[in-house]
């Protein structure tokens, strides 16, 4: 196993508020890492720094040995990092299929002239892209609803579509921001199986933020607890985290 992501000494402040302080993390290829903590702890901020939306005051983010800090979000995505958003961000007026096709643009190997005339490689490439997008929709169970407007799909399916779209960029690292938000127990179990499936199938490394403890426990092989922008605990054993008194006080609560 080799290291895919290395965050070191990361500090991100907004004005006087230090959202993340001295954060570090090492992700091994093929692993699933969970990031938990109370609201406002800085979890999504870390995702936004990794994907280039925010530029940190200090620290470094290495992906496959290359520095990400200072690069634009699209560049980081093309380097192989896919993500979903806590508050779903689909292309609402486009169909489910179009949402996925747009993300698969790296496969679109035709030039401007072919785009303007629809001649040459255009037809073949677009058909291949559509096929690939359909396969991804089938994997997330949306193949029957490919023509529907993304914005009018039910909430759970929008989450799945967002994952399909993230997979279309052929990522090696996938960041999931609260994938189980708003799901009941049954749906979370299905989600766990689904994430296991895509991880195996696309040999992904997964870094996820989640509040459902059962989802975190069954998926993650290492967990970091964040509170007020600082690392409170880190362990590969959920039981250990559950027993940690400062985690109980800050986040889990006493039973």
């Amino acid at each position, binding site marked *: 196993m080799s290291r895919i992501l290395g965050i070191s000494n990361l500090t991100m402040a907004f004005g006087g508020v230090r959202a993340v302080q001295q954060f570090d993390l090492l992700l091994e290829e093929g692993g699933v890492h969970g990031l938990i903590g109370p609201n406002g702890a800085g979890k999504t901020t870390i995702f936004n720094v990794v*994907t280039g939306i925010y530029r940190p005051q200090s620290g470094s983010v290495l992906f496959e040995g290359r520095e990400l800090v200072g690069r634009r*979000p*699209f560049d980081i995505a093309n380097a192989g990092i896919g993500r979903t*958003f806590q508050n779903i*961000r689909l292309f609402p007026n486009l169909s489910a299929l*179009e949402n996925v096709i747009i993300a698969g643009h790296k496969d*679109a190997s*035709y030039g401007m002239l072919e785009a303007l*005339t629809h001649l040459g490689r255009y037809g073949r490439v677009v058909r291949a892209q559509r096929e690939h997008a359909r396969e991804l929709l089938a994997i997330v169970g949306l193949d029957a609803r490919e023509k529907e407007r993304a914005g009018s799909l039910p909430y759970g399916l929008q989450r799945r579509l967002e994952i399909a779209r*993230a997979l279309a960029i052929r990522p090696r690292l996938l960041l999931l921001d609260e994938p189980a938000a708003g799901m009941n127990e049954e749906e979370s179990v299905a989600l766990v199986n689904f994430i296991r499936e895509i991880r195996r199938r696309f040999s992904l490394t997964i870094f996820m933020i989640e509040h459902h403890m059962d989802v975190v426990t069954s998926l993650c092989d290492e967990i970091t607890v964040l509170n007020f922008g600082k690392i409170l605990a880190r362990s590969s054993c959920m039981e250990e985290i559950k027993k940690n008194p400062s985690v109980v006080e800050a986040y889990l609560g006493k039973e």
Partner: protein
Amino acid sequence: MSDYTQGVVILICVNAIAVAGVSVLTGFTRLFSFGNGGFMAIGAYTSAILTKVYGAPLALSMPLGMACAGAAAWLIGKLTLRLKGDYFLITTLGFGECIRVALEYAYKLTGGPRGYSNIPHYTNAYLAVGLLIVSLIVARNFIQSKYGWHFMAIREQEVAAEAVGVDTAKYKLMSFVFSAVYAGCAGVLFAHYLRFIAPNMFNLEKSAEWTITVVIGGLGSLSGSVISSVILTLLPEVFRGLAEYRMLVYGAAVVLIIMLRPNGLMGYRELSSFFPALFRKSRSDREEEAR
């Protein structure tokens, strides 16, 4: 065809070509520009000067006029596209007016505020309609390609567009240049039809008119924009006496549209989706149904 009918047909084509460009920019990329009148002026003056002074044929002066308009947009876009929506709009307004004023000051070349006359007469209704058809086909192809899909991704959700690897700065610039090239093309046609051009023909009002046309026709609908431009060009011709109140009517129409049909007459839908039987299906669609 009488001269008058020809004139109306040509004016419709000129407006529709420029509006098709604005439709790509505003309807598909959600960027608003009040500077496209300036790009039309660049196309018009470039071609007028090349043909009159240097005796260039239209086949050369037209692409050059379009290229100059595109180049100006590329420069302006490079400088301003990092700005957010409203600020970008204001800068395009400023640059559009700059182009107009620059044309007035460069009177040795352009004839200044009194205008530039005796431009060779090349534009007839057939050429105009032919060009309109070609430019609509090209615009439709462009929108239904990866470039158009990237524009739509930017329109729909800019953060997500970046997150799936779309270089939003690059594609915004591309969309802006595309709309300027179309405005330039409209300018060339216009100059060789009227044979006289003056800087104040290409003012803010022109740019605003095109944006309004696209909003009325429906954001995200190329055919909607074109239909709306045909209607809005014809109306003042039909109601001659009311032509002076055109902008008043436009204003009222926009308010009504935004209240009653916020997506415009045909928002996000093309003509073909209303009358599928009338439109021959593309090969890929037929293959799709056969499966």
